[in-house]
């Protein structure tokens, strides 16, 4: 548990009779010596410095405007949640090790090596209180992509064994079993079969040659298995030659979220290899935000050359199919508002796709105030939803999202990200909130015209 209320901060030093404030918790993995942890952190900070990150880290004006864009700061007024402050250690490492004047910073000791205490303190800032939503990147007058830098800074934290335990365990499970929730190939097959029966839909599995490789996120497989059926219905309706593969079905990438580039690459390569194996021309990513970032924009860089196939988010696929007339939907008589997954819309550039789909559904679409690219994050992205100790803070932040949604007075709330959905569901339960988030894909699947 962490004190997050900047307006009523507790004086931690003062003696109190009955109440002892809890210490800020930080987790430690492994049994490295302190010095080794610091070295590891520095090493994996330094590894990220290239001309692009360098210009960003050198360009900050300390104007503090990113604080006004960050939901964690807006809701708590805690200055530590200023996005650029979360990068202070990363910046410190850059100025000391790789900046143009690094020699002088070292010579005169202007920038010291980071310390273990700093790293421990920053764990909360780099993980619990950043969803890598990138809203701050849009307010920065220098155009610094702060969110991108946070992802990189996490590399040092992971390698130093200083990340939130739940996130570490989830990422580790993903690396070991291929799924953050421990879903094995067999279990996936079971779920697919179950859904095929339940929804009376044909779901191709492990086809040797197919044009389209569809993948899923473990959250969907576990919590929202109807997504499997919905995906199948849509791809079938479009008349695609497609398949799921047991050797490459997991779209989530907890290696990326936790800050382990090795694991990130492993997870990405599984999908790439599976697609190449079946000669796929397209991978359709599920309703998952960070999967889009991991494969669509970072996949080729992990692969080291351009991918031999296209990558689409399911919302992009649906929009394309609807626009081209490959599938048709019935008009739906309801009012809808749409929550943009940060990694798909703001950072991924597919903002328009979901709106195209919604237009085809003919619903009364109510855009949130400053929706789309400036949308407030669900609060659970970037792995935050897995961090138990961050729940109170996440709930607090969710208030912004609730206000944004409620203002639209729409009947239904949709999104296209299972991770968003999960954190919405959790917060809905916490607040006993009226809105239950639905899936855009599900609405399309349920309203497909039989004759395409």
């Amino acid at each position: 548990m962490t004190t997050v209320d900047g307006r009523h901060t507790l004086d931690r030093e003062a003696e109190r009779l009955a109440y002892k404030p809890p210490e800020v918790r930080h987790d430690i993995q492994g049994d490295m010596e302190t010095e080794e942890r610091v070295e590891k952190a520095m090493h994996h900070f330094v590894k990220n410095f290239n001309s692009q990150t360098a210009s960003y880290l050198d360009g900050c004006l300390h104007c503090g405007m990113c604080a006004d864009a960050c939901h964690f700061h807006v809701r708590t007024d805690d200055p530590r949640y200023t996005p650029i402050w979360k990068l202070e250690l990363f910046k410190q490492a850059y100025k000391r090790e790789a900046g143009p004047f690094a020699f002088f910073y070292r010579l005169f000791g202007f920038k010291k090596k980071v310390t273990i205490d700093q790293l421990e303190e920053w764990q909360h800032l780099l993980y619990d209180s950043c969803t890598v939503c990138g809203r701050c990147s849009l307010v920065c007058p220098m155009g610094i992509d702060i969110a991108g830098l946070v992802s990189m800074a996490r590399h040092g934290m992971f390698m130093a064994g200083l990340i939130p335990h739940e996130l570490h365990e989830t990422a580790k499970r993903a690396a070991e079993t291929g799924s953050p929730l421990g879903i094995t190939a067999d279990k996936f097959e079971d779920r697919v079969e179950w859904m095929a029966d339940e929804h009376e839909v044909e779901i191709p599995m492990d086809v040797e040659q197919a044009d389209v490789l569809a993948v899923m996120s473990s959250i969907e497989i576990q919590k929202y298995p109807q997504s499997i059926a919905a995906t199948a219905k849509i791809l079938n309706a479009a008349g695609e030659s497609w398949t799921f593969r047991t050797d490459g079905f997991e779209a989530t990438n907890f290696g990326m979220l936790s800050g382990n580039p090795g694991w990130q690459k492993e997870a990405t390569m599984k999908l790439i290899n599976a697609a190449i194996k079946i000669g796929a021309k397209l991978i359709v990513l599920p309703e998952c935000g960070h999967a889009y970032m991991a494969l669509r924009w970072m996949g080729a860089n992990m692969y080291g050359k351009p991918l031999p196939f296209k990558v689409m988010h399911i919302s992009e696929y649906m929009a394309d199919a609807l626009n081209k007339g490959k599938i048709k939907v019935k008009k739906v008589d309801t009012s809808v508002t749409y929550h943009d997954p940060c990694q798909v819309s703001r950072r991924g550039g597919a903002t328009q796709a979901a709106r195209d789909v919604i237009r085809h559904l003919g619903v009364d679409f109510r855009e949130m105030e400053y929706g789309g690219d400036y949308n407030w994050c669900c609060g659970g992205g970037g792995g935050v939803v897995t961090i138990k100790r961050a729940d109170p803070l996440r709930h607090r932040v969710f208030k912004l999202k609730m206000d944004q949604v409620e203002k639209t007075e729409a009947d239904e709330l949709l999104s296209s990200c299972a991770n968003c959905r999960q954190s919405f569901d959790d917060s809905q339960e916490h607040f006993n909130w009226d809105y239950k988030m639905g899936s855009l894909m599900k609405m399309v699947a349920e309203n497909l015209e039989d004759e395409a």
Partner: protein
Amino acid sequence: MDLLDFARGPALQVAAYILVAGVLWRLVGILMLKEKPEFSEPRKPGGFMAALKVIYTRSFTAAPFKRATLYPKMLAYVLHIGFFAVIFLFVPHIVFFEGFLGFDWPGLPNNVIYLSGVAAVVAGLALLVRRLTDPVLKLISNFDDYFSWFVTILPILTGLIMPVRMGVRYETLLAIHILSVAVLMIWLPFGKLGHTFLVFVTRGTTGMVFERRGAKT
């Protein structure tokens, strides 16, 4: 050699050498670090035009942030525009630039310039007060922020004192003014005032990265 001769001669010369060398040092030092490879299939052509686009568009605040950042943005605009007017539209300064550029441009009446200078200083003071009181800015500020503020405001102040005089001899004031400019020139490449040239790099980079994704820039 009196103070003015020193200011106009060696001081300005050394400052100019340091300015040129420092700017290139920082730029080359950043840009010659390893390249970040980019193999993903672009949604839109990025490239140079995207860089230019964001260099331009980031000069304005996106609608959702307008209310929250109105005050500092307004001050920053006043500071920047005032400062630019003073530097580039005050006729003696234009003559100064003409001295090494070889061409000139129309200036503004001095009263307008004095007003711009005063506005810039007032905005600068307000920004300093904000930096000293706002919890966020208090936390993230360091020596660079305060020193850069000082060397930016100093030339405007020393310039504004000149018509007022206050009993000090003109050539002394002019020498002090030029020396303060020299200090600004010397510091500019190294601290956060480097944003005068880095702004093109950072905005341009973001333009190229995000525009090719088709994402919001």
